[in-house]
């Protein structure tokens, strides 16, 4: 009974909030609708939470309405209100004692006197008999209460009839003659002091005035309390299983057999574990290693031997230290102007000089957190383990030290500083000049088709020789005992005797020009190169010999002895680019059998029998005696234009069209000793 009470009343209280005062009995009767009820009760719970403070007046009103809807039977009111002992028959049968208790409480309540439990127990025996009679009374009284026999039906069905049902004798129960209208209702509400506790019973269509006790009960249910005033919710628990060992067993059953014999399953399990331990699958519980997280003197015994291992290791560079512009309150000049800020925003983050915009805060209090802080730290972490490291040699040089120390121009004097002489006379471009070995005379060849001979120190033109073509090159015979000039004009080389020397010299040169007269059998070269003596006008001018070449001659140059001269006819396709002529024997020969590239210039070695041939990129040195190439000088230039050999024979300079001058020291290497620009 206690249990049933406990579960029932809260539910009742829920429904009370909706105005339905239902007894447990009735719910037992409405087992089918229980489920829906439960659902509803859940809703009700919520409702209850919302409208906790109800006043009873409105409650009563609502009750009326709800009665309409749910069509509760009249006994719901009575049975619930009169006593809790009149619960469903089944419950009574099962738990008589429980109902006794309830009745007892009822009595106590009626007497309004505090009755102690001990007393109750004493008088329990007497009262029991009395109550048994009472029980039957209640049974009958239940039926007596049924004044209307229509049963549990919606009362609207009798809406159109004058009666509302039938009493036990089968007679009609008539509705009151005059129905109350709103006005009556209102008047009654105003006048009747008991209106608030009046409930309309539809079945009998009569008004019932609730007694004080009933109201008290309703109130209690609404508050969520037990209907019974004397019911103690907080009775001390009686522990069924206590710590005290009882003398008697709880059950009388004899012990099982399995409690005596060892369990097979357990044995299996244990053996499995033992096996696992033996096999090392299960390790014994590890002893907690408390040295972890403990710090000690790690560097107690420092030895530098390990250091050798880390030769390749580079320590990470440190983060650069912040400057003034990172301050929270920087000097005003470090703040960005609008332009700088716009520029900063436009720039790619990697191009920015500062990774942040300088900001100024009037006080430390206003400085916010730096939003990129974690980012920056993370970037640093990435740098530390993902970036290749390289040792970068920072050049710590005073830039002044880099400038080479040149001798002062003053110290290099004397050198010509002023223009003293101008040799005027040529009307075209002067292509070439050459100085006589005595240093007294200068010969110049020009595009205007003339060769002029000048005295060096007076700039006087001694002689003009018209050669009838643009002069490409002139060369004075380096032998001081001869006075001859070679001139390259178009495809011919002219030997000029300027007659500007002593008689002796003139004689010797004359002898050289005239000695060789015997005719040799014409060789291959003699067919391509034709020697011829000049006469007439040309002879008068001093032109003595004419060496006709197959192609245009670009350069002539003498051997230092003065007997041989070389001429150059640059041509890509043929091996006939260079000719060496012997003046004394009037003989020409082509020293090269094969084309080794476009020959730019040639030169004789002043002392030894070497011959320099400058092609586009390199200078080849041939030994004329052994007839083989001895060296190849690489002039690191694109296109060699000219070559000159020092009179000592050890140094060669090469000029080029790309504004470079390479200087070779033949004793050192085939690479230029110096490049000048």
């Amino acid at each position: 009974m206690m249990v049933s009470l406990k579960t029932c009343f809260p539910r009742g209280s829920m429904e009370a909030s909706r105005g339905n005062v239902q007894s447990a009995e009735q719910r037992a009767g409405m087992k089918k609708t229980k489920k829906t009820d439960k659902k509803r009760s859940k809703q009700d719970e919520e409702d209850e939470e919302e409208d906790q403070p109800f006043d009873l007046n409105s409650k009563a009103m609502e009750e009326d309405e709800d009665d309409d809807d749910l069509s509760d039977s009249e006994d719901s009111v009575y049975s619930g209100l009169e006593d809790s002992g009149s619960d469903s028959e089944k419950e009574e049968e099962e738990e008589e004692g429980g109902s006794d208790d309830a009745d007892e409480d009822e009595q106590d309540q009626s007497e309004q006197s505090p009755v102690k439990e001990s007393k109750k127990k004493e008088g329990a025996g007497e009262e029991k008999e009395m109550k048994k009679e009472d029980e039957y009374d209640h049974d009958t009284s239940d039926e007596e209460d049924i004044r209307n026999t229509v049963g549990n039906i919606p009362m609207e069905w009798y809406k159109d009839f004058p009666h509302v049902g039938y009493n036990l004798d089968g007679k009609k129960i008539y509705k009151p003659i005059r129905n109350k209208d709103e006005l009556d209702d209102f008047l009654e509400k105003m006048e009747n002091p008991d209106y608030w506790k009046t409930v309309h019973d539809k079945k009998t269509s009569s008004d019932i005035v609730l007694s004080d006790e009933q109201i008290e009960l309703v109130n209690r249910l609404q508050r969520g309390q037990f209907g019974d005033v004397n019911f103690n919710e907080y009775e001390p628990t009686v522990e069924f299983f206590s710590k005290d060992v009882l003398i008697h067993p709880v059950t009388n059953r004899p012990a099982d057999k399995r409690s005596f014999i060892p369990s097979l399953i357990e044995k299996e399990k244990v053996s499995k574990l033992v096996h696992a331990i033996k096999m090392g699958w299960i390790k014994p519980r590890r002893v907690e290693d408390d040295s972890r997280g403990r710090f000690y003197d790690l560097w107690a015994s420092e030895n530098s031997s390990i250091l050798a291992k880390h030769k390749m290791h580079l320590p990470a560079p440190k983060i650069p230290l912040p400057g003034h512009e990172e301050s929270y309150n920087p000097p005003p000049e470090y703040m960005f102007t609008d332009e700088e800020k716009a520029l900063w925003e436009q720039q790619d983050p990697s191009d920015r000089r500062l990774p942040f915009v300088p900001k100024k805060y009037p006080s430390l209090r206003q400085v916010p957190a730096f939003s990129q802080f974690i980012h920056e730290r993370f970037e640093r972490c990435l740098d530390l383990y993902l970036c290749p490291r390289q040792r970068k040699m920072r050049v710590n040089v005073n830039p002044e030290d880099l400038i080479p120390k040149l001798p002062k121009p003053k110290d290099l004097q004397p050198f010509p500083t002023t223009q003293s002489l101008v040799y005027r006379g040529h009307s075209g471009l002067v292509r070439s000049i050459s100085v006589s070995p005595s240093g007294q005379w200068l010969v110049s060849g020009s595009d205007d088709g003339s060769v002029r001979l000048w005295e060096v120190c007076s700039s006087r033109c001694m002689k003009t020789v018209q050669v009838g073509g643009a002069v490409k090159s002139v060369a004075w015979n380096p032998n001081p005992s001869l006075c001859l000039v070679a001139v390259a004009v178009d495809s011919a080389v002219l030997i000029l005797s300027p007659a500007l020397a002593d008689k002796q010299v003139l004689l010797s040169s004359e002898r050289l020009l005239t000695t060789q007269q015997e005719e040799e059998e014409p060789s291959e070269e003699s067919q391509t190169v034709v020697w011829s003596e000049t006469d007439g006008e040309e002879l008068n001018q001093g032109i003595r010999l004419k060496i006709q070449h197959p192609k245009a001659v670009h350069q002539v140059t003498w051997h230092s002895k003065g007997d041989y001269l070389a001429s150059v006819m640059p041509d890509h396709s043929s091996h006939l680019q260079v000719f060496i002529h012997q003046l004394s024997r009037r003989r020409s020969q082509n020293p090269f059998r094969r084309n080794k590239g476009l020959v730019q210039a040639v030169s004789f070695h002043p002392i030894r029998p070497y011959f320099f041939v400058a092609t586009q990129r390199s200078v080849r040195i041939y030994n004329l005696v052994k007839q083989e190439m001895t060296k190849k000088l690489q002039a690191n230039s694109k296109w060699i234009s000219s070559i000159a050999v020092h009179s000592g024979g050890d140094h060669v300079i090469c000029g080029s069209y790309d504004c470079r001058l390479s200087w070779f020291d033949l004793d050192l290497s085939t690479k230029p000793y110096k490049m000048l620009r």
Partner: protein
Amino acid sequence: MGGLQKKKYERGSATNYITRNRARKKLMLSLPDFRRLCILKGIYPHEPKHKKKVNKGSTAPRTFYLLKDIRFLLHEPIVSKFREYKIFVRKLKRAYGKTEWSAVERLKENKPAYKLDHIVKERYPTFIDALRDIEDALCMCFLFSTFARTGKCHVQTIQLCRRLTVEWMNYVIVSRALRKVFLSIKGIYYQAEVMGQLITWLVPYQFSHDHPTDVDYRVMATFTELYTTLLGFVNFRLYQSLNLVYPPKLDSKSELELKEENEDNYAMNSESYLEKLSALSSSLARVVSSEEEEEAKLDQFPVEGEDMEKMEAREKEQKLLETQKKIFEGLKFFVNREVPRESLAFVVRCFGGQVSWDKSVCIGSTYDVTDETITHQIVDRPNVDRQYINRYYIQPQWVYDCVNAKILLPVEDYFLGVTLPPHLSPFVEEKEGDYVPPEKLKIMALQRGEKPAQQDEEEEEEEEEEEEDEDEEEEENEEEEEEAEEKNLKKMEEQRSQGKSLQVKVTPGKVKAENPARLELEEKAEEKRLAIMMMKKKEKYLYDKIMFGKKRKVREANKLAAKRKAHDDAEKAKKKKSRK
């Protein structure tokens, strides 16, 4: 001809390097594990000189490690721990899947764990090596100690970081090693000199972090794992060097005091102990309770000439350092609640001052606001209701500026509500030709012992300047007028000459005055030009680069100076306006 043909990529640089993927396979580790290993062991990729050769002819972008490094990793005991851990996770998953709770328990008990002690020792064979590399560790630990205890990493890590940083700060206080402090927009930079090494670290301001999503916290956590170990050992050694107890303990005297006050506020003793330590207000216990140590003096050696000068300079420096260490000695600070307490307490204590704060702000306050002996109260609000007459109310920047200037700066510029002078970075050392902000010049003058120019004088100067300006303007005006007159004259002449229509004009020749000094300069410039022409290509390139850098520096300095001038002028104009 004979002999075997040499195969490509079987010798030389191709065999010295290994790609990341191959290294990973060789070590039999997953990529995250490989990454962790690299972080812990300090292995980083190398950029080969000839990438194509190393990459076996391909030009695909790859990361290369030195093969030697990877071989070195092969023998690392931690690698096997990583593998064990992998197996452990697999077993645990399996046990969970089968709901074998006892197995889960057992596995969890045997969870493989590793120690990093040997790695620290290996990476930093000597203590000085460790100190040199401690900067990153400090920055990271300080960052992690400010993390909220939610999700981003283990709570234990955060606690450990906090503990270690507090230990570090306590060491710096005791050894008085702090040298420079800088309030930047990122956080507070501190620089300390520990065992002759300058160590700089950055502490973020005390705010909760806005955790970015594109940051891999696992990487950071791995670094922190190593760094906490390193910092722990370094701390131990440092404490030992000062005869302090490690883990640090409060002085018994101060401990008693603290105990009396705060016993009731903290439930757990262990918890409050760290708090008390981190209050930075009390001294630490020593192993050998010694009184104040004698100050080390430089040994005197008989030296001569330049060495003597050097010695003197060094002695002077030493003296300066000694005075800097004691600049706050005898001063009593009180820190208001709106001021960053930890930073200020740290700085003030590092330089011998006493500091306290409101009891409700933090544990460990030693005296109250009402203490009459307080000399400075650090406030960071426009005004204070109740002011005591016998103390200065100053803004926090004063403390930092004093530390950086190594003297006690005049407090007038730092009173409440006053516009603060700019806070300069102490890390910038201006060389010749660099731009030096005027505030720095002022501080340097103060350091030299010169009296700062009085406000009145300045104003007078300003006025004078203004007058001068006006004069100049007048002069300019005059000049302009003259020019205008001349122009007019010229025009008139021209008109006249045109009227006469005389084309021939005789102009008197001008005497070319030769300036010998100028000539000499020109000659020198010409010589230099010639010499530069003769430079080698390589050197010329370098020379040009250096000169470009120099020019840029000058340009920047000029720009800053111009900006400053413009700003000052604007300020002056504003002042003038307001005066009128």
